[in-house]
């Protein structure tokens, strides 16, 4: 069983490293600002002691007023995990930096989030629809999506 790391310890280190980039932290969840997600993910991956070398999944939730992206990071070396979140308030053009250059497994999952939720990932090598066909109108897992 993967050990969930307590967020309070990590958030103190992150706050020292990236001042002002954290939104909140509780339990084993850390919420960060979208513009600093790449730097924080890179820090968590490359810092000895954290070594989050494996991205378990990326998913997105629509809370009507904002989108929340959820990254579940795991270290195969230390067998511990952490939930990293970020929030986009822009509904028209939500944009988040891509983490494909850190974890290649993020490639298809970011495409899926883009396809169904309409969140753009800056720096993604091939950001196009993965499930639905080219020419599909809208992003069907958004709460305000209307079925024709």
């Amino acid at each position: 069983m993967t050990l969930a790391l307590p967020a309070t310890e990590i958030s103190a280190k992150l706050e020292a490293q990236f001042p002002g980039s954290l939104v909140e932290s509780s339990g084993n969840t850390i919420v960060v600002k979208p513009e600093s997600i790449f730097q924080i993910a890179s820090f968590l991956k490359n810092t000895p002691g954290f070594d989050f070398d494996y991205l378990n999944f990326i998913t997105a939730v629509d809370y009507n007023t904002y989108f929340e992206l959820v990254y579940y990071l795991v270290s195969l070396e230390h067998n511990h995990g952490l939930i990293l979140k970020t929030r986009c308030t822009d509904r028209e053009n939500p944009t988040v930096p891509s983490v494909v250059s850190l974890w290649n497994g993020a490639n298809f999952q970011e495409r899926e989030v883009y396809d169904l939720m309409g969140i753009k990932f800056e720096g993604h090598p091939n950001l196009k629809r993965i499930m639905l066909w080219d020419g599909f109108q809208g992003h069907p897992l958004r709460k305000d999506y209307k079925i024709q």
Partner: protein
Amino acid sequence: MEKESTRMGIEDISKSYIYPDTELDRTEGEAIEAARKLYKQPIKDPDSWLEEDISRNILLTTADAIINWSRRSSIWPINSGLACCAFEMIATAASRFDISRFGMEIFRPSPRQADLLIACGTLTWKMAPTYKRIYEQMAEPKWVIAMGSCAISGGLFRHSYSVVPGINLIIPVDIYIPGCPPRPEALLHGIQALQNKIKHQSIAKKKEQS
């Protein structure tokens, strides 16, 4: 010196068999010789008495009756499953329910050789053009069974963004089998209904096309 030792080795191995090669060859030869002595006359066809009766008779029928009889008695379904209803179709084809009792056990993997499309499951819009092509590749005469709620109307996923609400939007359907999924008995009943439908078709009137 070396040659001799190799030959010795082969002999050693042949001695370790229970039946040496020479013994096996001899028994085989004896059996063949015995068979040649025994089987001199051709065996009489056990059904040969039938020919005498039938040759003295005339059978009368209509073209429709004989064509429809042969068509409905040997329907070849295509081996295509869309979703979970396919497992009921597989169960119907397997030994417990045994679709071959109705003369349709030969599931063809190629649409060119099939004449029944059992649409078993949810058809998504992404799959729809391919499915239409599979139907069009089948040679006439061909029939379609819509199996299960999803194939009939989209079912549970009717209001989804990705599901075709009824395969009759894509291809013409002959028989609808309700259920989610229908049990194998229901599929067998649908197949019998299709056979009944074929029974009453006429080659003079072409099947309606969509």
